[in-house]
């Protein structure tokens, strides 16, 4: 018996121009559905799902995704990840991505919803070889609380390490702890409730693309605040604070469209879920 609540392993390879799974393994409360090849595309989209309907006290999840040279993959969730109260032990999720030469990964999960008294700890470790391209997003949102409290969760902690050819190239560590932090004040969430991140690593990154993304995002309606900045390696982060998941999704989707158009002359697939 595995000590994990849910385990997922997915190995992708490029078979004569088409990306296919070499190995798919899941156990416990983690599952993937049959892959979808949108528009008869060359690479699949896998949908993750959590058959239990949410993460509970002390749950532990581990995901390992390996992309061989030139392999491509879209990975998303079927719906939002819900973290319920964790009276005894935080929920922990660990993700390892290994990306071979010139591989391509879109990891665009739905929002994480943290309910009253939830504690969630996530660690992502991403290893990238030369020429690999990563599009990564996450959205942190507070769940509905019976007493109308804005931030009723206990703690959200996300750590992401990105290694390029073996060397640490980006490190992101967010810890939101409403009981000890002045969430609405200067420096924290400043009146917003939802936090979105979109991290892109690609050798094709250019200042022109960042300018274009800046213009695109600035033109999106809605109440939000965002920043965009280059990483120490070719790549960038977009960080967004808003009050609605949809606003953050709109920004990430619009950015994704700009990237696909500029770099590949394509349009990303609509990850139809409902």
């Amino acid at each position: 018996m595995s000590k994990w609540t849910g385990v997922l392993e997915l190995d992708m390879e490029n078979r004569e121009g088409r990306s296919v799974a070499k190995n798919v393994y899941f156990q416990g409360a983690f599952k993937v559905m049959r892959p979808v090849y949108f528009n008869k595309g060359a690479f699949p989209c896998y949908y993750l799902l959590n058959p239990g309907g949410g993460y509970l006290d002390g749950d532990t999840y581990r995901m390992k995704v390996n992309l061989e040279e030139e392999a491509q993959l879209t990975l998303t969730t079927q719906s939002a990840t819900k973290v319920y109260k964790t009276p005894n032990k935080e929920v922990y999720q660990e993700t390892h991505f290994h990306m071979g030469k010139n591989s391509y990964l879109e990891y665009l999960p739905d929002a994480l919803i943290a309910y009253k008294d939830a504690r969630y700890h996530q660690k992502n470790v991403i290893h990238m070889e030369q020429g690999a391209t990563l599009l990564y997003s996450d959205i942190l949102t507070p769940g509905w609380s019976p007493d109308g409290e804005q931030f009723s969760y206990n703690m959200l902690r996300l750590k992401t390490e990105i290694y390029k050819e073996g060397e640490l190239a980006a490190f992101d560590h967010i810890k939101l702890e409403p009981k000890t932090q002045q969430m609405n004040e200067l420096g924290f969430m400043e009146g917003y409730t939802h936090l979105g991140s979109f991290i892109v690593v690609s050798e094709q990154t250019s200042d022109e693309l960042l300018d274009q993304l800046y213009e695109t995002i600035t033109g999106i309606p809605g109440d939000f605040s965002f920043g965009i900045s280059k990483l120490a390696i070719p790549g960038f982060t977009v960080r967004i604070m808003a009050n609605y998941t949809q606003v953050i999704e709109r920004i990430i989707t619009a950015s994704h469209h700009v990237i696909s158009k500029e770099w590949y002359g394509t349009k990303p697939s609509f990850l139809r879920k409902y």
Partner: protein
Amino acid sequence: MTSQALSLLQLCDSNFPNGAFSQSFGLETYIQKDIVKDAATFTDWLNVYLHEQLTFADGLAARMAYEALNDDELNRLWELDRILTVQNLARESRDGTQRMGDRMLDIAESIYQIPLLATYKEKIKNKQAFGHSALAFTIVGHDLNVEKETTILYYLYSTVVSLVQNAVRAIPLGQTTGQKIIYAFQAELKQATEKIMQLEESEFGIVSPGLELSQMQHERVGIRIFSS
């Protein structure tokens, strides 16, 4: 005061030419948005910057670097140089710390002749390191046998003093007001140092979303007197 501590004090002088006068680390964004506009709002910002960013980045890195030097584990020092640089996702702030680190290494090396400072510079030249003032400062403090806690406290103090001077020019505030803020921050600096001594290493690099956004947004702020 010991003469060792006195030597380290030279690096804390707000006139020390490490280029801190041109870095606001996002403060200027708040000034432009009229959120930071007087002594009270600046104090709010400085509090958050000290306790929510400096503590988990520069402060904890200084402690870990001091411990690595005690154990003679230089590889740990170079790892810290890397993580301390790449955890800064806002480009201008990241570039700013590198430039300041570079300047501090240059001057410190010519004052103290500590071989490790020369090694650090060499590594930067060969693109094997980035350069960071917190680490250069710690190397000097350690070499001078200044205690770990004192070294961290002095480093935080020097950072706070520079930021207050910058605020005095940019908001602007009166010189006396600036000095009063520095004096009032003694308690905050001690508290931050105590916390740094207690932190788990796994807490390294935690950043507050608002602060980080302001640092990213600075790239596109209209009128700028600071480069971050």
